[in-house]
């Protein structure tokens, strides 16, 4: 008797087909290494950012011109007094990284959040109403897509100055279109689905249908996209800072730290490597988290 071996199945304690979607999500989440790792790291960084004022050993803008460019603790001449060393003005680099997380995470999150709200609203309206409304939405999206985003962002920052609010809005402007496109497509699909038709046939008001039938089904898409866009926003903010058009010092974002550190590329590489790795780790973590959320919230299908 020949046989092909059956791929080993993981044993399970309970019968998940009888789980509610939320239970199923939790069930899957607990078994998703990417999600756990990404979520854990993201959470740690967000916590570090939120708690920066309490855990940072120094004031991040406190200069000590006598103690500038101290090496990090692992390098020769480093000390635990300044774990990551100090920068050119003698500011504690570890504290700056912590506070930088604050700015980067804040900007990333709110840029993703604002663009999600704007983009989703536009997309849902276009997808649901179709016709002229949709034509207008697609036209807006097309105009947005046709604009060279980074150039426009640079121009806008140069005009408005790099206040955090302005940056959030400008980054949101850069990213809303993806939400719009995805939400529009999904809404179009949903609109054709029979449960939405049934809701329409009950005479429910359009806002009620959008709110209770469409939105819940968009939610996981939006969350997944938000994580991706948040990661991207952090990188783009870093790029703007790198070009000198990002956040305003002295409170740094990670991008700004890289920009400041690049002149020490060859002599104090820690000043550029540490924030570089920080961005890298955060962005990877958020991406893993997003991928994980997508896997976990995916509706069940064969295969």
């Amino acid at each position, binding site marked *: 008797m020949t046989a092909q071996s059956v791929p080993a199945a993981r044993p399970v304690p309970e019968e998940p087909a009888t789980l509610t979607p939320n239970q199923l999500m939790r069930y899957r989440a607990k078994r998703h290494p990417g999600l756990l790792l990404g979520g854990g790291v993201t959470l740690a960084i967000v916590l570090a950012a939120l708690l920066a004022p309490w855990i940072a050993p120094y004031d991040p803008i406190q200069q000590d011109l006598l103690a*500038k460019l101290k090496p990090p603790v692992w390098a020769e001449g480093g000390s635990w007094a300044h774990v990551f060393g100090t920068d050119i003005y003698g500011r504690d680099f570890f504290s700056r990284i912590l506070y930088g997380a604050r700015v980067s995470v804040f900007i990333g999150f709110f840029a993703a959040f604002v663009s999600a709200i704007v983009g989703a609203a536009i997309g849902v309206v276009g997808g649901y109403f179709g016709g002229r409304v949709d034509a207008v939405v697609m036209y807006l999206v097309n105009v947005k897509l046709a604009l060279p985003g980074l150039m426009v962002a640079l121009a806008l920052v140069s005009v408005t100055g790099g206040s955090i609010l302005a940056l959030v809005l400008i980054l949101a402007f850069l990213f809303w279109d993806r939400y719009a496109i995805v939400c529009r497509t999904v809404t179009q699909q949903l609109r054709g689905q029979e449960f939405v038709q049934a809701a329409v046939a009950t005479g429910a008001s359009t806002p009620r249908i959008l709110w209770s039938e469409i939105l819940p089904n968009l939610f996981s898409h939006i969350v997944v996209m938000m994580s991706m866009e948040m990661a991207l926003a952090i990188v783009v903010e870093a790029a703007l800072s790198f070009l000198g058009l990002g956040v305003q*010092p002295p409170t740094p974002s990670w991008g700004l730290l890289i920009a400041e550190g690049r002149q*020490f*590329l060859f002599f104090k590489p820690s000043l550029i490597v540490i924030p570089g790795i920080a961005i890298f780790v955060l962005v990877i973590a958020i991406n893993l988290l997003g991928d994980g959320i997508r896997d976990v919230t995916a509706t069940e299908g064969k295969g």
Partner: protein
Amino acid sequence: AAAQPAEDKLRLAFEFPISTVDWYQDAKPEIEMVAEAVFDSLISYNEETNAYEPLLAKSWERVDPVTLRFALRDDVKWHDGEAFDADDVVYTINWLIDPETKIRFKANWKWIKEVRKIDDHTVEIVAKQPTPHDMMRLAYGTQMLPEHVHGKLQDKMAFRDNVVGTGMYKVAGIDTNAGIELVKNPDYNHGGPAKPASNVGTFHIKSIPDAGARTAALLAGDVDLLRNTSYEEAVALSADPRFDMDVLQSVSYMYLALDALGKSGNDALKDERVRRAIMEAVDRNALQRARTGGEPEKRSPQALCWDFQAGCAYSEPLPPFDPAHAKKLLAEAGYGDGFDVVVHTFGSTRDYGEIVAGFLNQVGIRASVQPMTFATFRKLQAEGQLGVFVGAWNAGVGPDVGTTMGLFFSGDTKDYYHDPKLIELAEKAQVTTDPAAREAIVRELLDTAVQKSYIIPLSGIPIPVVHRSEIEIAGGRNMPYAFSLGDLNWKQ
């Protein structure tokens, strides 16, 4: 590839792409640095002796308070072999003062009423009114153009395709991507002591915008000299036996100005004690040391003008560094708990702004830094929207206080003091030709500004330069860029 004096080619990298060497077309300091080597002015200024010296003009005389007569050299040839003569001067000056000419900073020549050709080698430049800094203007940034080439061009921009000057280097090629190549002009011998020829055969200049990449290029041997680097990096680089470092001195300085009128909406600044407190909170020495690695600077302005500038005079010492007193002053003014303030900076002044903000925070003033583009900064400055700002001023690019006085105390929107006395003094300084009288006016003006804590100079702008050790640089210039191409020489 390492720098090879054998090849006799010196390679530099600028921050900006360079598409022309004509400073009139692209008025950037870097361009002027090159333009100076390609073109000549009528006269030059010897910064060692503090005297004007002949260049294209052999000699000059002041015919009357508004008229300067220049006798031109008759042995100078343009790069294409044509002889230089009075027509070129007349053409150049007329082009500069023509209202239709589109170039930046036209106000630099608005004092000129007309230019007259007396004979082939004599011209007269007539001012609209007695102008104390007329010689300075002619020595700096007023380079002569060839009428037979430039005059014929419809589109003056096309001049870059066939650059003809009288200077010590000829342009062998300009290409946005490949950079600029300059070769030595063997016929150049009119420079005199103020503008001697360099011994470098060829210069190659390309652009590398990113600071890190510029350093990398030096290390990789793609360029031979690095300017616009930080002091720390320069020190680190010069540890490499291939490189030496010099800290050069530009004529520009950083200043700290306060919105004494409260135009920006920050009422605290209206209080003279608060302003004084801010100024006493800043340790200018530390700030200078931060930029020069502990060496106090060779030169640091003690007023809004340099000692070597004609007309510069002051007696009021700058506020001492005294944070305790500053705190006391703040408390007296009712700001014991500090207040919020934004330090506005642009491009290169951001570093200084950060340091200033750091000092302010130490006396309890909650300062953040707002860096912006130069254009935005100037606009906000002109609109009177800045509160505390760290600016850079090129000191009028020359050995004369003339243009500085009108800048800060003009009485218009960019004047943050609207002090009638100062406005009047500034106007007088612009038209007073008698040196002693002018000095008295300037002294009163500058002393008042400090006494009322309106504005103080923070620091000169030291420019660390790292270069291959085969190169030596003749000392600083009264220029924002600290040295000109002609100052670079192979070590003998």
